[in-house]
């Protein structure tokens, strides 16, 4: 199994979720994160003091899939999340060696 971890623009979350559901993936986990990259932050001034906010709000989607579905998953996310503008984000893929569904005790592919 593989962990597909995508960092995307927050307002793209719903489209990406729909794309994954369309693929038959029934589970995913989402985290609000802050990203640093080519897309730059903004300046804020509070009375005298000026602050540069280096991080921009992003959303991280983690979805564990069977290894053979990785490519489709990555493609679906990329298509749904793309705006073509700087800051669209990244997709990283890593390995998962075990999976367990807590409720039932099912493991691995059955647990996804």
């Amino acid at each position, binding site marked *: 199994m593989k962990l597909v971890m995508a960092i995307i623009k927050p307002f793209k979350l719903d489209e990406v979720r729909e794309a994954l559901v369309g693929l038959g993936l029934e589970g995913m986990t989402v985290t609000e994160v802050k990203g640093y990259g080519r897309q730059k932050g903004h300046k*804020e*001034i*509070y*009375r*005298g*003091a000026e*602050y540069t*906010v280096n991080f921009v709000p992003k959303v991280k989607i983690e979805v564990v899939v069977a290894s053979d579905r990785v490519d489709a998953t990555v493609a679906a996310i990329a298509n749904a999340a793309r705006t073509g503008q700087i800051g669209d984000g990244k997709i990283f893929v890593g390995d998962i060696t075990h999976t367990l569904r807590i409720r039932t005790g099912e493991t691995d592919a059955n647990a996804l």
Partner: protein
Amino acid sequence: MKRRLSNVEPLLTAGLAAAALLALMVVPALAADAPPVPNKGDTAWMLVATALVLMMSIPGLALFYGGLVRTKNMLSVLTQVFMIVSMVGIVWVTYGYSIALGDNAGPYPGLIGSFGKVFLRGVTPSSLFPTFTPGVYLPELVYMVFQMTFAMITPALIIGAFAERMKFSAVVVFMLAWVTFIYLPIAHWVWATPTPDDIVKAAAELAAATGDAAKKAAQAKLDGIMDGSGWLWHLGALDFAGGTVVHINAGIAGLVGALMIGKRVGFGKEALAPHSLTMTMIGAALLWVGWFGFNAGSNLEANGVTALAFVNTMVATCAAALSWLFCEWGFKGKPSLLGMASGAVAGLVAVTPASGFAGPMGAVVLGLLVSPLCLFFVSNVKRLFGYDDALDVFGVHCIGGIFGAIMTGILVAPYLGGTGITDYTAKDLVGAYDMGTQVVIQCKAVLSTLLWSGIGSAILYKLVDLIIGLRVTTDAEREGLDVIDHGERAYNF
């Protein structure tokens, strides 16, 4: 006596002779010796004004300040303000009122009151207190509690300067001492005034006196009455609602504190952004609403002058809020809410001493000018000298207060739309206004406040530092005062 005496103004222009008449006509109470009855409209207004001034402190000021600190220090700000309000309330009824305003019978009536009314001795529901209009009285309890709220908010203003790093125990001890040794005397200097009726009566006797001896005696009596008042008031300083006593006083004490306690960890390096400008906006709005009680309440009656103070408070604030907004837009690129709110507070501060003296257009000008001045201080001057006056108590309250105090001497001029100054003794008449003299007097008032409060506060900070220490440790500061000092967190979303 430099407080405007609106109701009798036309009569007074007729000079001293009129004063005699006045004593018999306008103040029948004095003539007939029947006890004056407070007007229920005045009482109603002053009770509301008092509630409004409390609302300025809590939740107003607490939120205005609290929104500007980081989440981890929110409760420390709220608790400090709440604690100060509560502590000063008890100080006031036990000895504060007596020492500051309740009793001019001590050995140095120009400098300080005495212990005649400690524990509110003799102050009952039927005790009366004079307003600024001869023959018009308030229940003394109303006056007492109205003034209490001023004593509550003034020290609370100071905490903004050393926010996010001072020990709670140190705040408790320092504030108790500060109110006692700094606030009470200055309040006395400016606001301990004689009863207008006494002046009018004495002036009438003087006018009626024939023969040198009688005249001398009458003059001595009048002088005695005047000498029983606070020295700054006697000097002729104009401060309608507390520019010196409240804002300059708190502002300089804050600066001294910020300097003595030192900068926050991370100041100038880390982002110390406000944790909730929403709270700051609520605070600023409630300060504005409550300030009508502060300024217009300071007239002690509900009449046309009250309305003037109300209107000036409104328009100076509007002007200053806009002015800060546009200055920031022009010079810093963007018009910010924090700027607008800061401008509103600067306008409120500046118009405080002038509120019952300036005309509405004068108040607008005052508001337009105070904002760029304060903006310059909170950004450029602060950066230049590098002190960490965390919430700009000095830059807004002290600078705005000084500007307002001096401008009061200018805007009171009748030819600038001001009310002019009428003397209860009818010696100075409306129109015979000398701006130069008045501005000098205003500067004296400003300077005395700066000196007494600046030096006095420095001594008190030092003493507290020696005894219990002013500042928390660096680790505690990183963790935040809420958890360290109060064992709570502001939010658990």
